[in-house]
């Protein structure tokens, strides 16, 4: 079951490349939250109840409900256009993300380690590089934040691979999530909307001399 959920997670990464609307990106993030909830619920059944509740709460409340709602609020409040405005055509994005997943798959298979759960490693690497790719190839500030949240989801997948042994690390990962979520989205995405007329990275080029 975990494998199915993680493969579905990989498909969401490909869909990220395909989607041209911001709403699509936000829906994918919410869906990834549900998938991570499923994986966490199956995988971390051995850890104590409080830790498990904390992790499940984070995946459902934070990743699936709070962040997508907040992103929608920022888009409405700052009148951000619906298009994601990538530098590259969507087709090329899909091809590159597919290659990223394929490369991660080959890399994971090249590792000969009996303790390693390769699918976790593969999905985490794919999410990491896909997130970086989204950040590099999208014009809007909000899509940069979405790219970062994809990286965060990848980190969460990797932390689940060690979660039963070291729940503290999963909690630390959650701390990172909440920290960035509150700070990046809550304060600065709003402030940037107030100050800059267009929510575009091109606007952030004043600091040079």
């Amino acid at each position, binding site marked *: 079951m975990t494998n199915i959920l993680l493969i579905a997670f990989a498909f969401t990464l490909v869909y990220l490349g395909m989607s041209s609307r911001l709403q699509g990106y936000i829906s994918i993030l919410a869906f990834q939250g549900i998938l991570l909830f499923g994986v966490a619920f199956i995988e971390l059944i051995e850890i104590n109840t409080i830790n498990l509740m904390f992790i499940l709460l984070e995946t459902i409340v934070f990743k699936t409900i709070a962040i997508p709602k907040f992103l929608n609020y920022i888009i409405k409040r700052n009148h951000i256009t619906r298009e994601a405005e990538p530098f590259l055509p969507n087709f090329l994005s899909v091809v590159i993300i597919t290659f990223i997943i394929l490369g991660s798959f080959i890399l994971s298979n090249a590792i000969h*380690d009996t303790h390693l759960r390769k699918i976790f490693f593969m999905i985490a690497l794919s999410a990491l590089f896909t997130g970086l790719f989204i950040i590099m190839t999208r014009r809007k*500030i909000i899509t940069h934040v979405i790219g*970062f949240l994809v990286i965060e989801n990848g980190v969460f997948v990797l932390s689940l691979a*060690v979660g039963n*042994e*070291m729940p503290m690390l999963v909690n630390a990962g959650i701390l990172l999530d909440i920290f960035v979520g509150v700070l990046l989205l809550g304060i600065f995405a709003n402030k940037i909307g107030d100050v800059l007329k267009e929510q575009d990275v091109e606007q952030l080029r004043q*600091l*040079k*001399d």
Partner: protein
Amino acid sequence: MIGIYLIVAFVVSTLLFFNRNKILNYLLVGLFVVLQWVFTIYEYRHLNIEELGYFIPDSLAIIFLIVLSIVCIPAFYHSYIYFKHHRDTPRAQAIYYAAMVVLIVALSAAYLSSHIAVTWIFIDLTTLSAAALIYHRRNVRALEGTWKYLFVCSISMALVFIGILFLTLALQEEGLKSLSYHALIEKAPILNTFWLKLAFLFIFTGYTAKAGLIPMYTAGIDAKDKAPSPAGALIGSVLMNVGFFGIYRFYEIISHTSIHNWSNKNYIHIGHPYRIYCNSLYASCEECQTYACLFRSVSYGVGCHRFGFWRNRALCCYPSFGASLAC
């Protein structure tokens, strides 16, 4: 003592945040400086005694803690002069002083932590407090500098966390659980070198955002520039030291393994071509001369840094690197 220090510092920063009275503000800052020094002296006199399970004041931590305590005095004094000339609102001043106290406390705790994940948590906390300082002027440029700093640092901290997870995979193979530096150094020779190499690459890359080194050095350039000068001095010196501190702690672990030489060579091989590429790129751009100068200073820092690693005396050269950047 560290428990008391953290609680009192938290209370002081909260009071600074809500207080609008100037005299009380200076009294609280004075109280914090005294607390910082009492804490530093206490830790110096209780070398290598574990506190709260996650903090050990070893010699490396004490050196950095003393540097921090020295630097915080002129930083607070110049903040006082800065506010005398700039006449910011009491609210902006309150946020500034509270953020500075949180930054110094997070740095102190990061230096003293004996657990790799606890170090990471406190270094992450420095991003939050430094962001508040950089955004102090509340204009477009400060906002841009803050956004860039936050974004690059957040990605870097995520990379460090991935590195820690790889390290955990190496530990799990051997049936180990402790992530304290002492345990890691002890068990380093038996850990899987593949995971250690991956962990080194990720942790090193992540902490370079704080240390102002290649490849994530871009985080700090605008930040130092846009923050008020005393805060910029802290960001350019002690905050960079903490990045180096994170790298050095992990390097200490690596130095007990068979990949010690690999890590040294790798560092040199990454540094050289990138340095040449960036220097030529900046030289060709007329608008980027400040960046070019800053990049060169970073490059010299890398040279210093590398020499330090080569000789295993990184500590000797690094404070000068931090100081040069602060200037």
